C-alpha cells in the first residue's frame, strides 16, 4: 500500500536517451523534478575485451585496444604497448616515442573536444558542440594522414609505431595547435564557458570533495577537478613525458565550490592547453629521421611475469594488469579504466539533485560507455 502512496516515480533513463553518452542506463527514483536516487545500470556494451585478450597473440590484440575508448584510441594503444614492452623489456626507438607522445596528446585534445562539446550539448547549447567537432575534424584529418584511420587508429605497435610521420605533418600539427591554443579556445570560452547561464548550470552541482574523490577511486580530470594534483604523466612518468615542461591543472572552485561540475569542465579546458604545450615541445625535440619500430619475432613471447602499468588517458588513468605465462597469448589482462569508477560515482553524487542536474553530472564526468563495459 505504501508503494501507491509514495510520491516516488521511477523513470527509466536510457539506454537510448539522448544524453547518456552511448548506451548507458540510469534508473531514476524521482519526486517530480527532484531526484532521490539514480542507479546506474551498465553492461550494454560489454564485449568481453579481457576474454578476447586471452585468446589472441600479443600483437593481434592491439586493434582491440582501440575499442576500449574509441574517442582516445591512441592512448589505449599506448598503454597496452607500454605494458608489454615493460614486461618484455623492449627498447623503443627515440622517434617512435615522440610520435607516440604527439599522437597521444593530439588524441587527448580530440577526446576532450568531444567531452566538452557533448556536455554543452546536454545543456542545450548546440553551437559550441558543433564548433568543437569542427576542430576535431582537423584532428581526424591529421591522424588520417598519419596512420590512415580516423577513429580507431591502431597506430602504436609493440616496440614502436606503425608509420613514420608523413611529409608536412609537423607543419600541419603546429598550425592546428596554434589555432586551438590562440584562437579557438578563446572563442569557445567566450561563447560557452563564461556564459552566465552555463556557469549557473555548472557551479555547485555535483560537488565531490578531494577525500571523496580518492575514496571512490576517481582518476584523471575528475580527480583533479576535486583539487588533487595527481597526473600519471608527472607522478609516475612513462615514455618520455619527463622531458617536457607542463603543468597539471587542478580545480580550485573557479566559480563555485571546489570539485563541482564546473571545475571538472575547466580542468579539461586547461588540459587541452597543456597538451598543446607538450606537442609544441615534442615537435621541436623530435628527431628528423630514425627508425620508428623495433623488429619483434613473428611469434612474440614475453617472459613469465606480472606487471601493472598505468597511463594517463583523457578519461583518467588507464591501468593494464598483464599476467604472462610465457606463452604467445596473454594469460590474463585486466584493463582498469577511468569511466568505470566515474560511472559508479555518478550514482553517489546524484542523490537529491534535479533531473536536469543529472544530465550535467553525467556530462561533467565525461564517461564513455564502452570504456565502462569493455
Amino acid at each position, binding site marked *: 500500500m505504501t508503494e501507491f502512496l509514495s510520491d516516488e516515480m521511477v523513470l527509466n533513463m536510457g539506454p537510448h536517451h539522448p544524453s547518456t553518452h552511448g548506451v548507458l542506463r540510469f534508473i531514476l527514483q524521482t519526486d517530480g523534478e527532484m531526484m532521490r536516487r539514480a542507479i546506474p545500470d551498465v553492461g550494454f556494451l560489454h564485449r568481453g575485451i579481457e576474454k578476447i585478450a586471452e585468446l589472441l597473440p600479443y600483437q*593481434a590484440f592491439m586493434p582491440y585496444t582501440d575499442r576500449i575508448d574509441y574517442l582516445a584510441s591512441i592512448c589505449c594503444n599506448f598503454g597496452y604497448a607500454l605494458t608489454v614492452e615493460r614486461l618484455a623489456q623492449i627498447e623503443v626507438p627515440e622517434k617512435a616515442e615522440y610520435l607516440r607522445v604527439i599522437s597521444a596528446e593530439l588524441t587527448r585534445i580530440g577526446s576532450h573536444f568531444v567531452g566538452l562539446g557533448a556536455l554543452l550539448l546536454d545543456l542545450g547549447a548546440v553551437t559550441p558542440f558543433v564548433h568543437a567537432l569542427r576542430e576535431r575534424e582537423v584532428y581526424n584529418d591529421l591522424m*588520417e594522414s598519419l596512420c590512415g*584511420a580516423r577513429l*580507431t587508429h591502431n597506430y602504436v605497435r609493440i616496440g614502436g609505431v606503425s608509420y613514420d610521420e608523413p611529409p608536412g605533418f609537423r607543419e600541419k600539427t603546429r598550425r592546428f595547435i596554434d589555432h586551438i591554443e590562440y584562437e579557438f579556445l578563446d572563442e569557445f570560452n*567566450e*561563447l560557452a564557458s563564461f556564459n552566465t547561464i552555463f556557469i549557473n548550470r555548472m557551479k555547485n552541482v555535483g560537488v565531490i570533495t578531494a577525500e571523496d574523490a580518492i575514496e571512490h577511486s576517481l582518476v584523471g580530470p575528475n580527480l583533479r577537478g576535486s583539487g588533487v594534483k595527481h597526473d600519471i604523466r608527472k607522478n609516475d612518468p612513462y615514455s618520455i613525458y619527463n622531458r617536457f615542461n607542463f603543468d597539471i591543472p587542478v580545480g580550485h572552485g573557479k566559480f563555485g565550490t571546489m570539485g563541482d561540475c564546473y571545475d571538472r569542465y575547466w580542468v579539461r579546458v586547461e588540459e587541452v592547453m597543456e597538451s598543446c604545450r607538450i606537442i609544441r615541445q615534442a615537435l621541436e625535440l623530435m628527431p628528423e629521421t630514425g627508425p620508428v619500430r623495433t623488429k619483434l619475432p613473428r611469434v612474440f613471447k614475453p617472459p613469465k611475469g606480472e606487471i601493472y602499468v598505468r597511463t594517463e588517458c583523457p578519461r583518467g588513468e588507464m591501468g593494464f594488469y598483464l599476467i604472462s605465462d610465457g606463452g604467445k597469448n596473454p594469460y590474463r589482462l585486466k584493463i582498469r579504466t577511468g569511466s568505470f569508477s566515474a560511472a559508479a560515482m555518478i550514482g553517489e553524487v546524484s542523490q537529491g539533485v534535479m533531473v536536469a542536474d543529472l544530465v550535467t553530472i553525467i556530462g561533467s564526468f565525461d564517461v564513455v560507455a564502452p570504456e565502462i563495459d569493455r
Partner: protein
Amino acid sequence: MTNAAAQYFRNIKDAVRTTAKGMKITLKYWLREPAITIEYPDRLGEGRTADDIVQDRFRGFLRLDSSICIGCLQCMKTCPIDCILITTEKIGEERHLTRFDVDQSKCMYCGLCVEVCPTSAITFSKRFEGACYDIRELCISHIHQPAPVAKPKAKEKEG
C-alpha cells in the same frame, strides 16, 4: 542589504554581458565564416571522386596483387578476426592459389595483414564505400581461377 542589491544588479549585468558576447560570436559566424562541409557524395567539386577526399594512407578495402603473392599465409594467420581465407593447392609442379577471400564485412581495417606481408601483395585501397544490399557481396574473392604463387625472393623471405 546594499550588498544584496548590488549583487542583484551585477547578476543582471553579467547575464546581459556574457549573453551579448556569445551572440556576437554566433553573429560573426552567421555573417562571415564559410561552411566547411564537403558535399559527399555528389558535389565533391570538379573531377574529384570519393577517393580524393581521403588521405594517402587511408585504410580502405583490402586489395591483392595476386602476381606477387607468394602464398605464405602470414596475413591469414595474423588477422585477429579471421576475415581472410586463403587456400593453396599443388597443381602440377607449382603451388597455386585457389582461393583468396576477404570478408570485408568483418574486416576492422587494423592493417596487421598489410604490415606482415613480405611482398606487399596485400595492400589497402582507398575505397571505402561498401554499402550494398546483400552482406555476401562484401565477401570479396580476389582469385577467380587458380593462379600460381610468385616465387619468393631470397631476401624478402628473411624479412
